[in-house]
């Protein structure tokens, strides 16, 4: 039995009976099946989504094999952290489609929030029995399945390959089988990704109830600037619409509680980033999943923090014992824009690098929200840190700051084939980084879903890492 401690579902610190994590390592799909066979039955039974619910269907501690059988073919090519906490995280995240349908079956309201990546769910989740989710995150599904099904569905509705992979969300809306039809769609647009604004407009035909929220441009006049009050008014509209939908008049205390629960997640992730980037205590693939959990907590604000606490306990333990999961001496890179194809992260780490900083266009979701201010003002202020409502220079500055802090040796910018802002700003960010730090920068576009990464991209990554090695 492991003496290692972790935080249980009840929030207490307790050992994990019958399980001791093996020496930290990134393992293959097949190796995880061997490990899973050794996981005690009691642990498979222990973890449930939507706690305190204990329905049999709500278990989620299942290995990548489970989800691969249901079509997630890419899982067979990735490498995974071999800790129980990571297995738990993967099971929880992969289970989200089912979880959303079960939420509806359990009588909860399911609200699709789109475009703003992090702010509106704080408000939605403050309402009782309401669950916010981002259809935007479906953009990973074609890669996870190695499939064009959702892209083809989007193409039939008017958005083809000249648009960002986020168009998969439109295909998912059309098919009614990736998430339940939402009770309400709250679509944010404005000073943001114009590809996705197009997707949102086409989604409207599938949404019986839809509202639009304006995202302002950030000015160089302080965080809030003149646009802050406008955004607060937009959020007041969101509150009004939610009150109308639910028949529940929300109190200031409920909104503050919503802010606190979002902050709980954000603080856990902040510490995990620190441990991953400085100590190599978590690998880049798991960390990308962790960071994106800040958007909508994978549709379960109650259970996701427990998953994170489990991960954090594992990472802290590794840091204390100086047993990283990735080689601390590996080449250190900052990654700009999330790679739609997660295999790229596995490839780069296999090639001898590790990620020590990220600018995944979700800076707004990483911000700690000020708990002393009026909630809507505080949420608006945190959103004003958003990656995509400011200049490319600001995004570059975020990458530069992290590169300095964690002594990065290079920067990788993975654009999205067809993504309009990527085409515009990749070179700009590259130039800013080179000017500020004199670091090598690799810039490429992620191509369509496939079982392997394109040979040319692989070769360019290999060559880039050789350059970094030669500079040591």
């Amino acid at each position, binding site marked *: 039995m492991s003496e290692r401690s972790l935080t249980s579902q009840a929030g207490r610190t307790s050992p994990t009976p019958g399980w001791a994590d093996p020496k930290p390592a990134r393992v293959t799909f097949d190796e995880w099946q061997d490990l899973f066979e050794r996981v005690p039955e009691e642990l498979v039974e222990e973890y449930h989504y939507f706690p305190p619910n204990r329905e049999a269907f709500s278990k989620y501690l299942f290995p990548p094999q489970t989800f691969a059988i249901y*079509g997630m073919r890419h899982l067979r090519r990735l490498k995974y952290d071999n800790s129980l906490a990571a297995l738990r995280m993967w099971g929880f995240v992969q289970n989200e489609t*089912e979880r959303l349908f079960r939420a509806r079956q359990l009588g909860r309201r399911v609200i699709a929030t789109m475009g703003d990546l992090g702010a509106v769910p704080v408000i939605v989740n403050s309402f009782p029995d309401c669950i916010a989710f981002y259809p935007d995150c479906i953009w990973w599904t074609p890669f996870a399945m190695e499939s064009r099904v959702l892209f083809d569905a989007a193409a039939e509705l008017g958005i083809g390959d000249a648009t960002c992979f986020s168009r998969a969300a439109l295909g998912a809306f059309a098919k009614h089988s990736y998430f339940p039809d939402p009770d309400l769609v709250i679509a944010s647009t404005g000073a943001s990704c114009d590809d996705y604004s197009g997707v949102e407009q086409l989604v409207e035909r599938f949404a019986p109830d839809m509202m639009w929220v304006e995202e302002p441009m950030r000015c160089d006049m302080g965080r809030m600037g003149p646009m802050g009050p406008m955004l607060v008014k937009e959020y007041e509209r969101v509150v009004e619409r939610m009150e109308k939908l639910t028949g529940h008049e929300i109190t200031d205390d409920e909104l503050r509680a919503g802010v606190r629960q979002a902050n709980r997640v954000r603080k856990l992730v902040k510490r995990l980033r620190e441990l991953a980037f400085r100590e190599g205590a978590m690998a880049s693939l798991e960390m990308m999943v962790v960071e994106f959990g800040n958007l909508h907590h994978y549709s379960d604000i109650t259970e996701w923090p427990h998953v994170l606490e489990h991960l954090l306990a594992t990472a802290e333990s590794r840091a204390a014992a100086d047993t990283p999961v990735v080689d601390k001496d590996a080449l250190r890179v900052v990654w700009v824009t999330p790679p739609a194809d997660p295999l790229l992260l596995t490839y780069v780490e296999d090639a001898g690098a590790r990620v020590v900083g990220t600018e995944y266009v979700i800076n707004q979701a990483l911000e700690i929200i000020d708990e002393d201010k009026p909630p809507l003002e505080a949420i608006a202020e945190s959103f004003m840190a958003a990656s995509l409502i400011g200049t490319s220079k600001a995004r570059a500055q975020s990458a530069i700051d992290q590169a300095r802090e964690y002594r990065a040796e290079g920067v990788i910018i993975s654009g999205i084939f067809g993504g309009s802002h990527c085409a515009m700003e990749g070179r700009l960010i590259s130039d800013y980084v080179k000017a500020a730090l004199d670091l090598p920068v690799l810039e490429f576009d992620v191509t369509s879903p496939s079982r392997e990464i394109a040979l040319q991209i692989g070769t360019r990554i290999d060559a880039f890492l050789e350059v970094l090695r030669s500079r040591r």
Partner: protein
Amino acid sequence: MKELLTPRERFGLLVIDEPQDRVPVFPLVTAHAARVARIPIRDYYTDGIAMARSQLAAQEFYGTDFISFFSEVGLVAEALGSRFSYPDDDLPLLAEPKWSELGELDDATADPMKDGRLRVYLDAISYAYEARADTVPILAYVPAPFTTAQQLVDQEAFLLGLLTEPERIHRLLEYATCSIIRFCRAIIGAGGLPILVDPLASGSVISAEHYREFALPCEAEVIRYLHRYDLDIVLHICGDTNPIIHIMPESGADLLSLDHVGLETAIAAAGDRCRIIGNFDTTAIMLSKPQEVADSVAAMVLAGKPCPRGFVAATGCEVPVETPPENVRAFVRAAKEAGANADWGARRRA
């Protein structure tokens, strides 16, 4: 007509208790796929790539909602030492069971990578998985312990042993279960969803009492193992299941694939716990005219659709090898039409 959902998406909705655009359609096309691909049946069950290509061709040709790998129920028994003959253009035949009578067991466990033709299945699953698993579920029939045991020991001795030597039978079943679970594990690793098939446990062969005492616990043990992976498990028992339909859900199966039992009876007995798969007469699909097939399938689907947990339009057993393709097509077309859920789009737009 192009359909909105892929078979994968449709199946995904079925297993989380959500309505689908239409009932999934699953004539059990197994070795008949060799006819579609125009290869000898012996190639189908001895060459995994040939098996996969046949199944892929048949799935595309007929527009069914599943790919399902199966040749015969002796698969695991052969891997454990029973001897089968391979006719050129027919399915394997049990030539000599491992044991002629109930006796002492060895400590063998079948190795899926080496023994018998288990590897053929794994190769087939892997190939089909890479080809089409994003859109179509890949299923693999695994003979259950009770059926496997009857391929390990002379069948007459086995059936007599149910009455005279139950302890030896139980040990033999445990012996078979070990290898079956190991095979299931390999199938999962290859990307296939195991279907447990137990035809020799049907009411045509044994009593309900013997089913409960011997077959059911082994089915339950294998299904428990598969549920550790959160897989939705089909239990297929062809033949007469009238005497056991009410206890089959105790196996833990999520879907029951049935043959000779009235759909109303099956739904009343198990439809609140399991999705029902069934159960078109396999003689009829081979010998009837296409329009007769279509009419009967439509009636079957109308009878099955009210099943509370969901219904899959299927044949009761394998589509016979020599079934005219136009009959299978008539089956699929009629099942899709009769199984359409007219409320599906409308309900969601409302």
